């Protein structure tokens, strides 16, 4: 099945960010979003390593590897930006100063549980980074991921098999097939790609959807 590219999903996330919001983009796919946030959105992006108000590195601009995002890619700080240390940076997260955090995910459950740091396999090296801090403190937490794994297993599930990053925190999921809200009544599809039917989307999702 044809899916949206990572860049297309990043564009969708970027355009959904509310004006004036302070936003953190997690490691992996979410960091791509910075390229598509328009200056006129007045969104302030935070990078966990200590940068406020940045944008994707414009084409042709010389990279500075002391100025990188959570995925270690060079970025550009906007006028009005700030460098902070990690005490302040993680304080902003736990302290409730972020409006939105966008995080990658292995699994998201129907009630918004997030698993994104370890498969639980002893041969798999765990890596939590800033994910738990973000999932604990941001006012809204969105997941951004492929709808299914490479071998076709649903990543949206009734309950997570992997160890949790945080329970009941995700309120919206952006995938390469759909955008889904997690509401008290369950998973509600806000938008889906036009080439997939509701039945086909449900078949790729291991928890009930409403449309």
């Amino acid at each position, binding site marked *: 099945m044809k899916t949206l590219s990572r860049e297309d999903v990043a564009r969708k996330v970027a355009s959904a960010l509310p004006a004036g919001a302070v936003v953190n983009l997690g490691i992996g796919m979410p960091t791509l979003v910075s390229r598509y946030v328009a200056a006129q959105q007045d969104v302030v992006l935070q990078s*966990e390593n200590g940068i406020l108000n940045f944008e994707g590195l414009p084409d042709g601009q010389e990279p500075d590897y002391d*100025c990188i995002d959570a995925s270690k890619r060079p970025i550009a700080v906007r006028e009005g930006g700030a460098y902070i*240390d990690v005490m302040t940076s*993680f304080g902003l997260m*736990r302290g409730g100063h972020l409006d939105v955090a966008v995080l990658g995910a292995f699994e998201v459950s129907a009630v918004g549980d997030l698993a994104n740091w370890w498969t639980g396999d002893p041969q798999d090296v*765990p*890596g*939590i*980074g800033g994910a738990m801090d973000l999932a604990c*403190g941001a006012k809204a937490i969105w997941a951004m991921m492929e709808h299914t794994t490479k071998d076709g297993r649903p990543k949206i599930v009734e309950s997570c098999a992997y160890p949790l990053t945080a329970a009941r925190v995700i309120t919206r999921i952006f995938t390469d097939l759909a955008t889904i809200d997690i509401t008290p009544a369950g998973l509600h599809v806000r938008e889906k790609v036009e080439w997939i039917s509701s039945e086909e989307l449900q078949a790729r999702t291991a928890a009930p959807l409403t449309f």
Partner: protein
Amino acid sequence: MIDKQVADCRAAIDGLSSGHTIMVSGFGGAGMPRGLVAAVLELAPKDLTVISNNAGFTTGDISDWLSAGLVRKMICSYPRSSKTFVKLYREGRLELELNPQGTLVERMRAAGVGLGGILNPVSAGTLLGKGKPVHTIDGKDYVLETPLKADFAILRAKRADRMGNLTYNKAARNFGPVMAMAATTVVAEVDEVVENGGIDPEVVVTPGVVVDRVVVGGHA
């Protein structure tokens, strides 16, 4: 007159011994004190406990210490990007204490500012909080985290004065300020050392009173 500049990276880590705990600043390559990392590799103390956000990446960082068998235990948040770490971990040759990044930071801060621990909501109810005391305050669960201190901290800054006051370059600041508070001996590798007065007191990020030695390093 106080002058904290030392001649070279080897002199800067004088006193580092086998069995020590050492903090290393940096997030990715930004803030990684590469000259000091190389000096430690050459000195080759064994049985180190290393506190750093990552466990290195390729070479010229903590990965080299892992390859050389200098490290017994890593305390970090995101070791997955280091192929050397992954290999040794799978072979059971390295101990790992995984902390959420903000928890790692606050545990160091607690040690640096004289607190006996912190109450942190992060990791409550998860595998990473398992076995730690939980306190409920106003209906919310907080995990008790203990302070994290070290014998040495090695940092990368941009500029120092003779007193050891530091400024940083962009996001290379990351873990420098907190590690500088939490270690017995604090060493900063810098691009340049200026005379006192060469750094405006208004822009000092890490105060020299917590910095023991500064050394001019190579460029990253």
